[in-house]
């Protein structure tokens, strides 16, 4: 396996699955939701780059959350007005404590995906959803969809691109509230089954 493939595999297996927890951490500690996609990306790039130069950390989770904390602190310094409560919160942040909290939810993705996709599908604009459904589920070709809907193939392509963007975004970082509710309902169902 080439060095790059090896790095990519590490990133896929160790970093990306932590995203829901990472985003919760960022949301708790940063007010402005709009900054978060860029923060996340900057953070991923830093992690990726330092893992490439300095080797993979033994404890990926601790490494990632320490990097997240440092990034938030440096961004707060850039702000004119530092939200004091947030900094205090971060100062007491116990990374090993977070790591323990995270362990159970790493694997809990599978079933939730179906819920997420369904919610995302239902939220797509009608035309987008129709196009996606015909292409991916009915298995029609781009041309067949264009004919059926009476639109150009270019438009079909553009609708598909929009649909996939929204689905991927929702899948990776869907509406936190809904995901939480589903998660809670599931935890409850499990607790109930255990009785």
């Amino acid at each position, binding site marked *: 396996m080439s060095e790059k493939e090896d790095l*990519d595999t590490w*990133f*896929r297996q160790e970093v*990306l699955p932590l995203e829901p927890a990472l985003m919760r951490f960022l949301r708790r500690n940063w007010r402005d939701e*709009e900054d978060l*996609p*860029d923060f996340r*990306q*900057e953070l*991923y*790039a*830093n*992690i*990726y*780059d330092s893992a*490439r130069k300095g080797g993979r950390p033994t404890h990926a989770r601790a490494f990632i959350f320490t990097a997240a904390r440092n990034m938030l602190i440096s961004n707060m310094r850039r702000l004119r007005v530092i939200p004091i409560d947030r900094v205090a919160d971060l100062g007491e942040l116990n990374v090993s404590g977070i790591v323990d909290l995270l362990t159970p939810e790493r694997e809990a*993705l599978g079933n939730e*995906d*179906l*819920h*997420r*996709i*369904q*919610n995302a*599908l*239902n939220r797509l604009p*009608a035309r987008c*959803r*129709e196009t996606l*459904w015909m292409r*991916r*589920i*009915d*298995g*029609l*070709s781009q041309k067949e969809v264009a004919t059926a809907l009476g639109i150009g193939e270019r438009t079909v392509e553009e609708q*598909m*691109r*929009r649909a*996939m*963007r*929204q*689905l*991927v*975004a*929702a*899948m*990776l*970082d869907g509406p936190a509230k*809904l995901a939480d*509710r*589903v998660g*809670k*309902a599931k935890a*409850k*169902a499990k607790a*109930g089954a255990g009785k």
Partner: protein
Amino acid sequence: MIHDGLTAEEACALDWCLRQQQADWNATEAAELQRWLDASPLHAVAFLRMEHGLARVEHSLTEVGTPAASRPSPTLTAVRSAAPKAVTPPPAARGRWKALAWAASLALLLGGGALITAQLMIEPAGQYTTAVGSHRTVVLEDGSRVELNTDTRIRTVFEGDTRQVHLVRGEAYFDVRPDPKRPFIVHADGQRIVVLGTRFAVRRDAERLRVVVTHGTVRIDPLALRKDNKPPPPVIATRGDAVVVDQRSALVTVLPDERLDSELAWRTGFLMFDNVQLGQVAAEFNRYNQRKLVVDDEIASIRISGNFEASNLGAFIRLLQQVHELNLDEHRGWVRVSA
């Protein structure tokens, strides 16, 4: 800066991922992609994240679209390492779609006949009915179980490649035996509920249809056409979802577990209310009893909580009388409650 929830780099990376899936993906493009990836770690991580997300989307889409959830789904990693090829479902998927379309037209033809047979006292084969206040479980020929709630009628048509049930009126809970080769379809009120091996309840009221899913996934296809002569898009519902469908719209709500229990309490002969207005509670009791409860507008908004035996209207009325000190005006066939 943000494109449908993605950063600029991610939107670009996703375009790359989608282009890789095209049949005409070639070495020149591959080299171009490699240059883009090497240009910045921002690109590299955006690409990895999109690839990961897209694989999950593709996987979930195949589960949404097929009864056989076990069908191997094309993942991006496979496409990337193997020779470039387009990701399309097998032709079988299309054949099934046509079969469903055919089944739907048959269902409409048979719909007229149901009105005539409903007048007969003897229950014809494949038809099951409950009277007001009764509750009954039937096992269908494929082993699927259907529980009929009060005042309900279903008709089954098991022919060829499909298993079809028409909910003529009322409410039923379906526990469907999975069979990918024979889709299970419930028709009700101009909607088609396509089941992918699962458990769910369907309730047909005067103006709308309510579907509650307790296990697995169902797809609801509205049959009525919109103004522009096209069918409205289907709705997918999974465990814990309640879908309310009328002629114009479908609304999906995620129910917490306790609501799921109360929605299906009728299966044990009970009605469960959590802070529900008395007017609504009365309407619910009236589904189960010949003797109807009539509530004065003045007190219709009193809130009721608790579990009650559906068939024991008397017990409920006595409770109302004691707790809320209401007046009863009893008649033959109905009871009026007032302040």
